């Protein structure tokens, strides 16, 4: 008999306790109810959730709210496909907008340990911002990539890796969010169109003679590329070649003609790629291997 009473006591006391706590929780949740717009949750589910900041907002959640409030267009997130952008547009009621041109990060330096020497050996804090104060970095070229990987730490998608002293971008993983551009204390990183097939791997402002002394692959502003470019897409700005990607059609002549190998293919360090220009542009000379060929050792091979 007392068994039954005991059970009753238990249910009474502890069941009652649980009842009080349960109701307390629900009542509290009413007071603390955060007005959560479930449309925002649907949008956040579509976004990659990497909080990379490429859209200019602190994270995917704040970007979703901005889209909902109409403050931002749905296509600002660079790593979304066209269908995802349309889906977000239709959820948020904003007008569907075409996907912005995808961009890819590009590091304007190829000063690896092989092609340039070090002024000194640095053993301090593992951060570019601290090494830059000591004479612009270890490497003899003041404009070169410091190589301590601030961009690597900033990249949410793990697309950048430092290979023997110089940072290199894995174009497949890079979503063009631009958080590495802000991370590099020497601002060596720029966003180039993903379709670009050649780019200048240098940003040295020294004269040619000085560059020759310290780096094998530095741009000596000889201007050969400017003369040979059929679309005159390349110009020399304070001793360094700069490609205007709206004019460039990726013919690759500049890469072949460049005596220092500063202009390279963005698809990895293969030999000067055979120039297969898109048919619509002017007809290209079919010279596959130029007189001067070189084997670019590293950039982003694997």
């Amino acid at each position, binding site marked *: 008999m007392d*068994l039954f009473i*005991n*059970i009753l006591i*238990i*249910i009474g006391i*502890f*069941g*009652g*306790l*649980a*009842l*009080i*706590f*349960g*109701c307390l*929780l*629900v*009542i509290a*949740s*009413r*007071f603390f*109810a955060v*007005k959560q717009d*479930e449309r925002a949750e649907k949008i956040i589910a579509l976004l990659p959730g990497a909080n990379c900041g490429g859209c200019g907002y602190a994270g995917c959640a704040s970007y979703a709210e901005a889209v909902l409030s109409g403050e931002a267009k749905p296509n600002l997130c660079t790593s979304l496909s066209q269908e995802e952008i349309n889906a977000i547009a239709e959820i948020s009621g904003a007008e569907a907008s075409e996907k912005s041109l995808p961009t890819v990060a590009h590091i304007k330096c190829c000063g690896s340990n092989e092609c340039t020497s070090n002024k000194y050996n640095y053993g301090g804090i593992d951060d570019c911002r601290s090494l830059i104060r000591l004479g612009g970095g270890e490497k003899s070229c003041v404009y070169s990539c410091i190589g301590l990987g601030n961009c690597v730490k900033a990249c949410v998608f793990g697309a950048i890796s430092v290979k023997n002293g110089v940072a290199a971008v894995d174009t497949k993983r890079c979503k063009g969010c631009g958080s590495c551009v802000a991370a590099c204390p020497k601002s060596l990183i720029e966003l180039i169109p993903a379709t670009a097939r050649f780019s200048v791997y240098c940003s040295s402002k020294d004269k040619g003679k000085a560059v020759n002394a310290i780096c094998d692959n530095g741009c000596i502003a000889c201007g050969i590329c400017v003369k040979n470019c059929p679309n005159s897409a390349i110009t020399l700005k304070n001793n360094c070649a700069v490609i205007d990607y709206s004019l460039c059609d990726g013919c690759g002549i500049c890469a072949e003609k460049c005596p220092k190998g500063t202009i390279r293919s963005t698809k990895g360090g293969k030999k000067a790629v055979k120039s297969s220009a898109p048919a619509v542009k002017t007809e290209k000379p079919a010279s596959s291997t130029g007189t001067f060929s070189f084997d670019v050792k590293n950039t982003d091979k694997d």
Partner: protein
Amino acid sequence: MLNKSSSKKSVSTTELKEIFATGLKLCIFMSVICVMLFFVNSITAEKIAEFESKKINDAIITIMGDDPNMTIEPLEDLGDSSVKEVYKIDSMVDEQSQLIGYCVYAKAKGYGGEFNLLVGLNADGTVKGISVISDSETVGIGKKVLTDSFLSKFNGKSEGVTLGSGDIVAVSGATVTSKAVTSCVNSVLDFYESTLKEADTDENNG
């Protein structure tokens, strides 16, 4: 739960129902589990208690020696907090109960938490032997202290035992546990002085 009524004060009936429903579910969960525990406890409670007392009896026998006609009689009125139980040990020698000693079951605060000792006292209040009932000291450190080699050093001691004096030296690396054992034995001896001794004397001259 989207907040339908914008003003927080008006608690509509649906919300009341929802509050009560959730509370009820939690209450059911809790009650079911508690009742289950109650049954399991009622089954295992006696076994645990039985094990507990068997352990103490075995310890008493190991300390006091296996005297067939020994009677173990738990004493009440224990004021001291660190002393849990006290057993008066008498042996019926030709039906005249002759006091052999006491067994005091006391707890001590060791490194890994509390541990329980059974301290056997002779009739004259000197320590006859100590055995460990349960402990949770770390293997290899605290446990080394609770072995017979260290505990037997307390035999024969009567009043305040201090660590480091005479042959009682703390086990290196396990000072916390050694101190705990010493303080526990001291509290037992003090307890003997304060309560057991008078009970003894007025019984002898009573």
